């Protein structure tokens, strides 16, 4: 469905079900050079199992207009505005990679309005090498290939998004190219990476959240290695949060390399 957020057209995939304000809501937030479609399976399942789903295209990405966020904080403000625009008082936030930082920051700002926080493929700090930052700006196709290689752990993923016969490695490359091409004003690749790299409020944010948090990590993740999530996990534990960690035997694209395991981790956590 389309919403007007901050005066700009914003697209949210609702999982094939109409939005129902009486149901609990879960917001899915994608990472750099992704869009709502990376969550197809998880979002469609939840939409047919009692949840409102808002799998958003961030501003300036694919079907959403507006200025692409240049910082995690700016994107978190957008998520707050999105909930207002949808008339949602309380929601679970699920974010992947860059989206996990956006979800985290939004949860810290929205406090009781966030019921659950799920951080998939997260790290803090989420530093991006200068070489990759430069490459994303100057040679985006080369950088996209590099990121895709780092994000994958197998040449033989199980049946995944789009169903059997999908070559998820190629699908990710194609999606990255499409997202990059969708914004002719700004290089959303570089802008997204820059936002990840410069985000400094992670530990403070996780200490400030008022909801339980689930970490869904890929044991073979080379983009956000599991050990890079430890500062957030420790900070959450140390500040008395309810913390769950799901370690999956996959790389950075948990949603496509382990679609069922990722779904079950999220589903079971949302039931808690």
């Amino acid at each position, binding site marked *: 469905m389309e919403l007007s957020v901050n005066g700009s057209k914003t697209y949210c*995939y609702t999982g*094939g079900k109409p939005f129902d304000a009486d149901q609990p809501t879960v917001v899915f937030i994608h990472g750099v050079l992704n*869009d*709502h*479609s990376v969550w*197809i*399976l998880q979002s*469609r*399942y939840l939409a*047919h199992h009692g949840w409102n789903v808002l799998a958003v295209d961030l501003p300036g990405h*694919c079907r959403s207009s507006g200025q692409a966020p240049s910082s995690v904080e700016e994107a978190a403000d957008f998520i707050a505005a999105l909930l207002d625009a949808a008339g949602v008082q309380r929601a679970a936030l699920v974010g992947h990679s860059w989206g996990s930082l956006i979800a985290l920051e939004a949860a810290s700002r929205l406090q009781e309005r966030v019921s659950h926080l799920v951080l998939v493929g997260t790290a803090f700090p989420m530093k991006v090498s200068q070489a990759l930052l430069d490459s994303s700006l100057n040679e985006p196709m080369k950088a996209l*290939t590099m990121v895709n*290689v*780092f994000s*994958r752990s*197998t*040449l*033989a993923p*199980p*049946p*995944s*998004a*789009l*169903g*059997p*016969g*999908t*070559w998820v*490695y*190629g*699908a990710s*490359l*194609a*999606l990255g*190219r*499409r*997202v990059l091409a969708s914004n002719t004003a700004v290089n959303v690749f570089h802008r997204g990476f820059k936002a990840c790299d410069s985000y400094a409020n992670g530990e403070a944010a996780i200490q400030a959240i008022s909801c339980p948090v689930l970490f869904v990590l890929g044991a073979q993740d*080379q983009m956000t290695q599991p050990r890079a999530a430890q500062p957030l996990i420790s900070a959450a534990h140390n500040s008395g949060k309810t913390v769950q960690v799901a370690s999956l035997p996959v790389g950075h694209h948990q949603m496509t390399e382990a*679609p*069922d395991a990722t*779904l079950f981790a999220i589903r079971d956590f949302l039931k808690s």
Partner: protein
Amino acid sequence: MPGYSDPGFDTLALHAGAAPDPATGARAVPIHLTTSFVFESSDHAASLFNLERAGHVYSRISNPTNAVLEQRISALEGGIGAIATASGQAALHLSIATLMGAGSHIVASTALYGGSQNLLHYTMRRFGIETTFVKPGDLDGWRAAVRPNTKLFFGETVGNPGLDVLDIEAVSAIAHEAGVPLLVDSTLTSPWLIKPFEHGADLVYHSATKFLSGHGTVIGGLVVDGGSFNWDQSGKFTELTEAYDGFHNMVFSEESTVGAFLLRARREGLRDFGACMSPHTAWLILQGIETLPLRMARHMSNTEKVVAFLASHPLVARVGHPMLESHASHALAQKLLPRGAGSVFSFDIRGSRTQGKAFVETLKVFSHLANVGDCRSLVIHPASTTHFRMSDDALAGAGITQGTIRLSIGLEDPDDLIDDLKRALKAAGNLEKAGA
């Protein structure tokens, strides 16, 4: 640099889509000869039917062995996914039927396999889909043929059997100006010789019966989506961009930003038309693909030697292979097909049709049959077989005469192939001396 995580073509040909079977440890891909797959629960069943979870339901729609093949060809082509079909013709039909209905129009190359020309010129027309045929190199012709209801451009990487090389970059640019995708039949080249997506094609299909299988054992097809065409932006494909009440009111282009075509092709086309591939066939094609790089290299080296022999033989009027400077597509082939323009080509014997017949019937190593891309060398007379339904004008458009002989060069010792051709040409020459 390709490394473990960024494998090259030869590695993908062996490993893409396949890992040791977690249930048994089997290293080779198991053949899943089963019609159906047990549901864990009613909820699991409902979730699979509604595309909330990925998995197999019924082998007409998907099958684990076929899925490995589909991933493998996608990896080799640089696509996002594929669908295995009962034949190459089924792959072409599935592509067309997914993208359009009655009242639509296709612009296609004149240099097509006879079966494809037949499908477009006669059969699809009966279902309300018209085709305008354009010489593959006539770029103005491609542009001029576009109508408001045009939905697809279609050509072969190298046209059968004249080997007119399709200028994929130029033709795809015209297609995209018109807001339609370019579908390319890459059967004769395989991804080892060219990856059409890298040059602008949007969809690629194969008769996997040919080089991918490579052993002349099974019939099968594969259609691969490059994930590059923006169906929403085009505005011409409501089949993909508006709710489809035949499948959960799904809007395929919302469901998947890059995979709308494959979603509808599988969920409608395979489901309703049912031209699926047997898992046993998929397994045999996988066996073939594992050695595709090795075979293609040998196909090409043998072809170079045979072409050189024929080009210098006094009884041969013309050899139609782009490796020769005399071929109209020589320059384009050098650019698009640096490893070679395939091992299927035609040549003309000087003299009568009777001599041509004697030539074919004298061959012993070459098999006289209707196929190409086998590991064995093959020969056929197109005008009386593969292209026999075409008029003389249409034949001429495809670069075929009554005296044209088509060869498919296999993997035998090249000296044996040349000896065989030498004997057959001598037999044809003796007829000329005898006044036949």
